[in-house]
């Protein structure tokens, strides 16, 4: 069965290797070009546009969807082509159980995408390392977090699992692609956009107005605190004190309504690995869930 | 020899095989000692049920024309070829000269066939097998 999966999916696997190779070349040359470029100027916009703007920006954007590409390549056709062309009937009537047919495809596919994703993640971390120092972004920022560590592996695994399961359930590679793209985008938006910042309760620092400084970390929110300890949003304070601001300085105005301190909430950078572990676990559970759903299809009496 | 099966003829398939074998025995294409094609070969070529072939061979065996030898195959033991006697040769010569006359009288092949068939029917009865 192993031989069959390799033989059947060899074009897909070669494409996976090609994708990884392209990234290695792009990332390596991007790193070289960055290191060879003249010292950064103080002009932030010029710096962003010329020095590492395209490489950093596009590089991260495309790296964030590369797991999707790898998952589609290996997963979408894995079962759907067999079922579409009925070749699974050949396999299943030549001494191979449904379970073996399914398991060997899933295991080999998982192995391939995990290796590819691991190489990509390592190369990307290495290539962006000098840029990250200059750009000064937190390792928890959506772009950096999603392309480094073990999270890319988990995203790739999820994309593969979703594509393989959808292919088996819909018996159509095209439907599998559509479902995977939509599902992957939805999961990524929910995790990176909403859930990630709250994986652990954020840290809170309070201090005199204008006197709180947080170094590193992902800053989430800044607000004022009045004497009773209640939190007042910046915008709310601004609306209340609009008249006051026209004639007085802000500190005086704020004092008028009892605000004496400000507070900053943030996720510190040293939570990087904890967050990586939490997000990877979520994705692993999702992957397992879709695979279990597809495995249940095997037990049902449909001529898979 | 090679058997042919005419599927739409209405004649039972095994009978077609028997008839063809007898025809071959009459014409001398099958002679004493010759082996009939194995059932497997006939089945492969004609795609008919093996039992049909076996039934035809049993029929030929009952007529004493062939004999099944275990593990070897089915062999011709008696021929239906006309004895090559003086009488046969004389009849043949007469028929040849008659045929020439028929041709010169303007009879075609089908006319001759019809005429011969009619006479044969009257002489031997209607049974043509």
């Amino acid at each position: 069965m192993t031989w069959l999966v390799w033989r059947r999916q060899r074009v897909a696997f070669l494409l996976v290797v090609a994708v990884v190779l392209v990234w290695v070349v792009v990332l390596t040359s991007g790193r070289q070009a960055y290191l060879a470029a003249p010292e950064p100027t103080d002009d932030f916009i010029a710096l962003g546009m010329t020095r590492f703007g395209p490489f950093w920006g596009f590089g991260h954007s495309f790296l964030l969807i590369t797991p999707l590409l790898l998952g589609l390549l290996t997963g979408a056709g894995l079962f759907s082509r067999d079922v579409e062309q009925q070749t699974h009937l050949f396999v299943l009537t030549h001494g191979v159980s449904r379970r073996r047919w399914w398991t060997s495809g899933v295991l080999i596919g998982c192995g391939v995408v995990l290796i590819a994703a691991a190489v990509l993640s390592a190369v990307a971390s290495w290539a962006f390392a000098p840029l990250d120092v200059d750009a000064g972004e937190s390792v928890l920022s959506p772009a950096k977090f999603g392309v480094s560590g073990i999270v890319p592996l988990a995203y790739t695994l999820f994309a593969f699992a979703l594509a393989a399961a959808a292919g088996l359930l819909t018996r159509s590679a095209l439907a599998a692609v559509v479902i995977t793209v939509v599902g992957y985008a939805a999961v990524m938006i929910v995790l990176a956009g909403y859930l990630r910042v709250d994986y652990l309760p954020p840290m809170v620092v309070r201090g005199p107005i204008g006197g709180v400084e947080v170094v590193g970390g992902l800053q989430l929110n800044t607000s004022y605190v009045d004497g009773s300890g209640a939190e007042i949003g910046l915008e709310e304070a601004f609306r209340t004190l609009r008249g006051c601001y026209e004639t007085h300085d802000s500190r005086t105005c704020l004092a008028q309504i009892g605000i004496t301190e400000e507070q900053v909430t943030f996720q510190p950078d040293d939570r990087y690995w904890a967050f990586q572990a939490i997000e990877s676990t979520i994705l692993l559970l999702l992957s397992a869930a879709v695979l279990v759903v597809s495995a249940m299809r095997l037990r049902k009496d449909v001529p898979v | 020899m090679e058997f042919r099966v005419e599927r739409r003829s209405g004649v039972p398939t095994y009978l077609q095989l028997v008839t063809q074998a007898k025809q071959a025995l009459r014409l001398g294409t099958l002679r004493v000692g010759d082996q009939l094609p194995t059932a497997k070969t006939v089945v492969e070529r004609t795609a008919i049920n093996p039992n049909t072939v076996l039934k035809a061979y049993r029929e030929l065996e009952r007529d004493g024309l062939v004999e099944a030898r275990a593990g070897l195959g089915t062999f011709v033991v008696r021929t239906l070829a006309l004895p090559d006697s003086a009488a046969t040769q004389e009849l043949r010569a007469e028929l040849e000269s008659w045929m020439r006359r028929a041709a010169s009288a303007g009879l075609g092949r089908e006319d001759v066939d019809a005429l011969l068939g009619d006479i044969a029917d009257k002489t031997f009865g209607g049974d043509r097998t």
Partner: protein
Amino acid sequence: MTDGTGVAVRADRLGKRYGARWALRDCSFELPAGRTAALVGPNGAGKTTLLMIAAGLLRPTAGTAEVTGSVGFLAQSKALYRTFRVAEMLRLTGRLEAAERWDGAYASRLVDEAGIDTERRVGRLTPGERARVAVALALGRRPDLLLLDEPLAELDPLARRQVMGMVLAEASGAGTTVLMSSHVIADVEEACDHLVLLRGGRVRVAGPVDALLDQHRLLTGPAGGAGIPAEAVVLASTAGRQTTALVRAAALPSPPAKSTSGLASARPGLEDLVMAYLQDANDGGAA
């Protein structure tokens, strides 16, 4: 290997439902070992479902299907990897099958005898060649029961004869029971000695062809069917001044009543029998 006296397939009140629709219902029949059986019926009668259940590819919703010995299955699509070379298909099957159950040399020889170059890709073979490769691969596991789903569909007449000839010759040599579906009676008429007729998901007729034909008569008489006992009729049709009826011999009066003596009576052909049972209005039990 079967001894030719046992039962190769035994279906007992077999049923299979897809959603709300019963593809098979209350199917009961026995196929004795060593037979070459035709599974006939119109499209949608449940032939593929029945074969897939017998092959272990589907689980029945109701009833049971027992199969004796090992099973070879040929899907209607032939189910070969079209991008593979024939040699790769042979090698693949050898890898999939347990070593003790796979006779690779035999499968290779069958492909060879069909005159097919094993370096060619499956997708480039003619439909007839593809069918013969698929049959060779199904036979390579030396099955006791060979299930063929519409093996001749989409083949030209020469290929039909070659494929059927190959199946029959190899199966008879090994004593293999064959069950093949077809919706073209002419394809299986000469090849099969056993009939299973499906209609609307139910078995309408099943049994040895010779016995079935002996159990029926084809009666011809004046229009109106006068004198033909209604309870014996499977199907009667009138054309011009003449009525033809396929009847069950057992239901005819014996000795022949005066009323039926004026009718011409003949043994029906397989096609007469099949056509009658495919068209009759009766949806009840089998003959």
